[in-house]
């Protein structure tokens, strides 16, 4: 089975006036299907930057990336947007749900917007996903009426809506209390285990990393311990 993520020599340099800052200096990273990987590193180590590059939200200065066997560095802006929509899932620290829409509508949004409308099939899948994340009783609640943990569950369901090959989570429990954070982590572990969904979770929290199947640590713009080769999920 081919790697879900195969990144080589990823480097990025930011310019601030005359000052150049090299944040990533040739990162090599591979993720196999079904991995639940924690991307660790100190603040400013470039883990969010790496996540953004893998999520096609940022173009690297150097390196190559293949996601599910497809090279993506040469894609146009429109093609990258389509790729993100169809093959990647995102979970952010701040859920960024659309406050004027219900939980079901939020989950179905990534499919409904490109299709030009929400079909019964989309609605059905959104409701199934909400049930999957334990939100059966809040499906028709507006996002503003949900708690922080509930919103993050909806965000997880939304990330899974288009059956992505890779789910990228940036500090998904960062804005939650410990209980809610544990519930969200348990949910992601469960989805990873049962659905064989591949997760790359960016976190600075050892507690989160400890519950993942693999740790990838960034330090000084490199992956600590040399190139990271995937290990099968337990």
């Amino acid at each position, binding site marked *: 089975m081919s790697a879900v993520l195969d990144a080589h020599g990823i480097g990025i340099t930011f310019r601030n006036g005359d000052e150049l800052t090299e944040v990533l200096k040739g990162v090599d990273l591979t993720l196999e299907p079904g991995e639940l990987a924690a991307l660790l590193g100190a603040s400013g180590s470039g883990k969010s930057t790496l996540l*953004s590059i893998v*999520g096609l*939200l*940022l173009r690297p200065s150097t390196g190559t990336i293949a996601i599910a066997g497809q090279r993506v560095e040469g894609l146009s802006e*429109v093609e990258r*947007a*389509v*790729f*993100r*929509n*169809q093959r*990647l*899932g*995102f979970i*952010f620290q*701040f859920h*960024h749900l*659309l*406050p*004027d*829409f219900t939980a079901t509508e939020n989950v179905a*949004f*990534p499919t*409904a*917007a*490109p*299709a*030009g*409308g*929400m079909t019964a099939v989309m609605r059905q899948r959104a409701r199934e996903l909400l049930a999957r994340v334990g939100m059966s009783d809040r499906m028709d609640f507006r996002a503003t009426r949900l708690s922080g943990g509930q919103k993050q569950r909806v965000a997880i369901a*939304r*990330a899974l809506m288009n059956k992505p090959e890779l789910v990228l989570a940036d500090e998904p429990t960062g804005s939650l209390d410990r209980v809610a954070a544990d519930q969200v982590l348990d949910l992601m572990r469960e989805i990873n285990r049962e659905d064989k969904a591949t997760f790359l979770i960016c976190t600075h929290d050892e507690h989160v990393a400890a519950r993942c199947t693999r740790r990838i640590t960034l330090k000084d713009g490199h992956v600590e311990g040399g190139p990271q080769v995937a290990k099968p999920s337990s």
Partner: protein
Amino acid sequence: MFAFTVARRYLFSNPAQTALLIAGVALGVTAFVFITALIQGLAIRLTDDVTANSAHVSLEPMTRVARVLGSGDADVESIAIISTFQRRQIRAWSSTVELLRTQSAVSAISPQISGSAFLVKGEAVAPVAVTAIDPAGLDAISPISTQIVSGDANLGADGVLIGVRLAEDLGLSAGQPVLFRTDRGIDRLLVVRGIFQTGLESLDERVAYISIQTARPLFLLPEGVTNIEVKLFDPHRAREFAVFLHQATGLRATSWQERNANLEGALTAQAQTGTLIQVFSLISVLIGIASALSLSANRRRGEVGIMRAFGVSKLFIAAVFILQGLLIGVVGAGIGCLSGFVLCSWLATLTNPDGTMALPIAPSEGGYVAVFLLTTLGAVLASVIPARSAARLDPLEAIQQ
């Protein structure tokens, strides 16, 4: 269309703000409708006042000009002398009238003999502009018979109709005889059959109507007429129709607009002022829409960022904001047109103590279609800037904020 659903949700998410925005648009449109109806109403009233008692096109013989006859290098030249005694006239007026009768734009035709005369009553003498017409077509150009305040409008063979001011000046009343003296020095005793009051000082003080048959010997015109007055169904076509008549008959054709150049200038200036006010009211509406949508786009940066992150196209984001502008424009313009019509209709019912309209407003002339289309189009254009700004948001930057 899903973008429409999103746009609608965004607008309904803050009903008070949306209501205020729509109210602002509606107010601007109401002002536009009011100004348009007022200016059009004023123009209609002034035009009606001017054209109600006069012809829309007047046909007269071309002005005669003295000229040198023969070639320029001839030793002996002769000069075409103009007889000042012979009155200018349209001899073939019957054929011209026949031509006019075939024109669908013409509503009334009145061949006339116009000239100057004096009315003499004892010691009192008053100059008058004489209009000699066919008694059967007395009201063709000016509704004189409806404006008779004393006597009647039956001219007969020896009758004359005079204005109320002229009657006062000469101390005349209906039924009294008066000496009629033409500019050719021919006298005839006529009877004042009726006294009219048009409300226009120039007519009530200076004009006298007699029968065209009575006028022929008095003005030494046994066959011809001096002018043919024409009324049209649409007075605004007078200028182009005058050009047509001049080309068709060779006569000098003067439209009412040419005769009232000052009025036309005033109406044009008034229309230009109104246009300025309309433009400013539209601009203020559009600035309101643009600023409100810009604020909305800014407030929703996070949401737009996440949409872009999960691959929603820039076009979709732009469509959401443009559709908000469209909705605001359509609803605001619709309400504004309706409230403008109601306001103008109410103002049109207000009257002065003498029964005339307090405001010369024409509710049907509010420019509703124009303002609706302009506002809707403008609202869409005003939303383009915030839409572009939202669509161009860097998703990463927006999410991190």
